[in-house]
């Protein structure tokens, strides 16, 4: 383990660590543009200049591997002057259109100028080289003038997606990035280009002009788009989710997030949400309170007893699934969750980057908790035979399945917990408003059997409640209370009851999650395309 000294601080690092990585890990900031933790080192921006003792010239911190006894100074006058000069070069042709630039507030140029620059520009605005602005690249908007030519996007396209859509064109100070023949970017990971771009050259078209970033509050969460369980930030303002952003987790998604995942925030604030409970009466639907609706469901369950069936959803958190399972066991009905066989797809990769075929975030959690018991087909057969008197659905998946329509029509009482309105809800007798993933706290277990935590980012609409609270409400009405109120308390019960989860603590899971047992199906982390 080589030891080195950075700015007088003794640091012991793993062999092969670069100065920049070690400095950032130890709270010493060195400005950088082209270096990215999940991309290969390029060393083209020359802004991370440092002084290394016994080396005659300044070195770039991002490509300087630490050796034993190295003494590094990042703020010496010589290093600082070099950092400042390098920054000034990057800004020579920058249009300084921060007022209209969406990157303002999270821009490396702004941050580093305030920290390392603070000089008066030597270039008049009219002398600057002008390049293409407002270039539509499909999901991304390109502004070549703002580009600092760090090549992060090129390396991302090369190493992660292997698509190589972007390249440098022209020479000298006319160099800019461009797609071939101005074509659009067509892969599923374009949003990451806006994320990796340290400046405002590549920006998300979806987020364009929507919000200044300093108004946003970030909440740590997990993408519910598929079984990969990418770590995300939900950026929200005044209870309205504005965008999803990748949150770095080296073991799951590195720094990436797919575009379908990124778009999922749009489902949160829509008007088609189920915001109140409703019950089907003689004339049709009647809106009611959640309490009254739960009373009705509890009464139906009491009457049906073991002639009831329960379908959990892999869209729910581990806490939701646990509470639902407890409900099914308290009533004594049949239980399953495998509508459309997600358990077969949970390990199947959709592409070589992130996505999995299973579009549910918590199939593995359902499997771990043993919710797959009686089989959906068996439950449907029982429905057709008329031996199911009450059916409780944790999600509306089964209602959407065409093959199940006749079976459900045969059940006298169907309760469904739903987040969004849809024609399928008309097949139910009671609709309970459920909160979505961004509105609840809890945990998902991804395909690697990694338990990861979500935090509630935005308030649920109207009367909507987390599914575990709905299930807990039914349990207390049946005289068998769950004995836990918050997600943390329910998770303590999950950890006790689930094989492999023993000893897990809701807070101890941390921001990055904890892997339980051996990942089923091998260590299938995100593989960078070779």
């Amino acid at each position, binding site marked *: 383990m080589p030891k080195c000294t950075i700015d007088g601080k003794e640091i012991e690092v793993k062999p092969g660590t670069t100065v920049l990585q070690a400095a950032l890990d130890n709270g010493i900031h060195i400005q950088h543009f082209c270096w990215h933790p999940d991309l290969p080192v390029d060393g083209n921006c020359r802004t991370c200049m440092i002084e290394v003792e016994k080396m005659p010239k300044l070195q770039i911190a991002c490509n300087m591997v630490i050796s034993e006894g190295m003494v590094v100074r990042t*703020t010496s006058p010589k290093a*600082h*002057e070099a950092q*400042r000069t390098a920054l000034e070069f990057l800004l020579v042709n920058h249009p300084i*259109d*921060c*007022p*209209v630039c969406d990157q*303002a507030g999270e821009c490396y140029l702004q941050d580093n100028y*305030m*920290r*390392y*620059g*603070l*000089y*008066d520009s*030597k270039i*008049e605005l009219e*002398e600057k080289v002008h390049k293409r*602005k*407002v270039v539509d690249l499909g999901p991304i908007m390109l502004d070549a003038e703002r580009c600092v030519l760090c090549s992060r996007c090129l390396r991302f396209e090369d190493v992660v997606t292997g698509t190589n859509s972007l390249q440098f064109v022209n020479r000298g100070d006319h160099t800019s990035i461009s797609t071939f023949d101005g074509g659009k970017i067509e892969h599923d990971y374009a949003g990451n280009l806006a994320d990796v771009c340290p400046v405002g050259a590549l920006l998300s078209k979806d987020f*364009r*002009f*929507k919000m*200044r970033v*300093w*108004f946003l509050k970030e909440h740590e969460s997990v993408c519910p788009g598929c079984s990969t369980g990418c770590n995300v930030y939900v950026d929200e303002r005044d209870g309205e989710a504005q965008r999803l952003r990748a949150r770095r987790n080296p073991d799951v998604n590195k720094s990436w997030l797919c575009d379908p995942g990124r778009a999922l925030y749009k489902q949160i604030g829509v008007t088609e949400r189920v915001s109140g409970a409703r019950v089907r009466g003689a004339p049709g639907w009647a809106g009611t309170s959640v309490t009254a609706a739960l009373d009705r469901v509890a009464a139906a369950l009491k009457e049906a007893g073991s002639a009831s069936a329960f379908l959990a959803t892999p869209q729910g958190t581990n806490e939701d699934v646990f509470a639902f399972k407890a409900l099914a066991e308290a009533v004594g009905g049949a239980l399953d969750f495998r509508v459309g066989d997600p358990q077969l797809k949970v390990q199947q990769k959709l592409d070589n980057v992130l996505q999995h075929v299973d579009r549910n975030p918590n199939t593995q959690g359902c499997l771990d908790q043993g919710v797959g018991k009686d089989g959906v087909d068996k439950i449907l057969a029982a429905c057709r035979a008329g031996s199911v008197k009450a059916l409780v659905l944790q999600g509306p998946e089964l209602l959407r399945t065409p093959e199940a329509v006749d079976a459900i029509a045969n059940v006298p009482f169907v309760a469904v917990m739903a987040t969004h309105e849809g024609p399928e809800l008309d097949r139910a007798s009671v609709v309970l408003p459920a909160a979505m993933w961004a509105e609840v706290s809890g945990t998902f277990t991804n395909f690697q059997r990694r338990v990861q935590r979500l935090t509630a980012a935005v308030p649920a609409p109207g009367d909507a409640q987390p599914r575990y609270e709905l299930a807990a409400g039914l349990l207390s009405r049946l005289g068998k209370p769950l004995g836990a109120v918050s997600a943390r308390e329910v998770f303590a019960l999950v950890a006790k009851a689930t094989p492999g989860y023993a000893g897990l603590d809701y807070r101890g899971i941390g921001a990055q999650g904890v892997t339980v047992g051996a990942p089923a199906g091998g260590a299938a982390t995100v593989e960078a395309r070779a």
Partner: protein
Amino acid sequence: MATRVVTVDRNQKSGVLPILRGLQITFMNFVRSLFLRQASTVSYPEQKRPVSSRYRGIHILTEREDGTPKCVACFMCATVCPAECIYIESGERPEKTIEKYPTRFEIDLLRCVYCGFCVDACPEEAIIMSRENDLVGTTRAELVIDRDRLMARGKLVEHGAGYRPDEHDVRRPVRIAALERLKTEHGIVPGMPAAKSPRR
């Protein structure tokens, strides 16, 4: 109007004399306004007092030559506003050099505290203040003024422009504060700002 300073001795013993002294002042004012036409009041609203050229009255959104707003919807004013009375929605502008403009720009004048921070924060001199200080409306909604009304106010001649940004006063402290922070937090003292190179 020159201000007259009156010193009052609070320890003066009460008696008839101070009362008479007070009556004398009242009587003198009465004579002055009745016979000499030197009233200290004005006939508002027909008559208005002159106010400072830096008076912070109702806002004006300035225009470009083609009549479009100068504002680029950067949200600086909305960010700095302590009363949170500015609401902006931004949209795509056809010209590629400017890109962005406000599709909605509303100021709730009933919430506004007329601090002038929005004027200081604006990088485009798009929001300035007028010298108009009488705010009259019959409903609350009437006093939430939108983009077009804010822009139309630019043509007001009767009150004229009031508070406007002063490059020297406003930007300098921001930079001095940044330099100070650099020194105290990071121990970095950047070299003196380089002199501007002579124009080619």
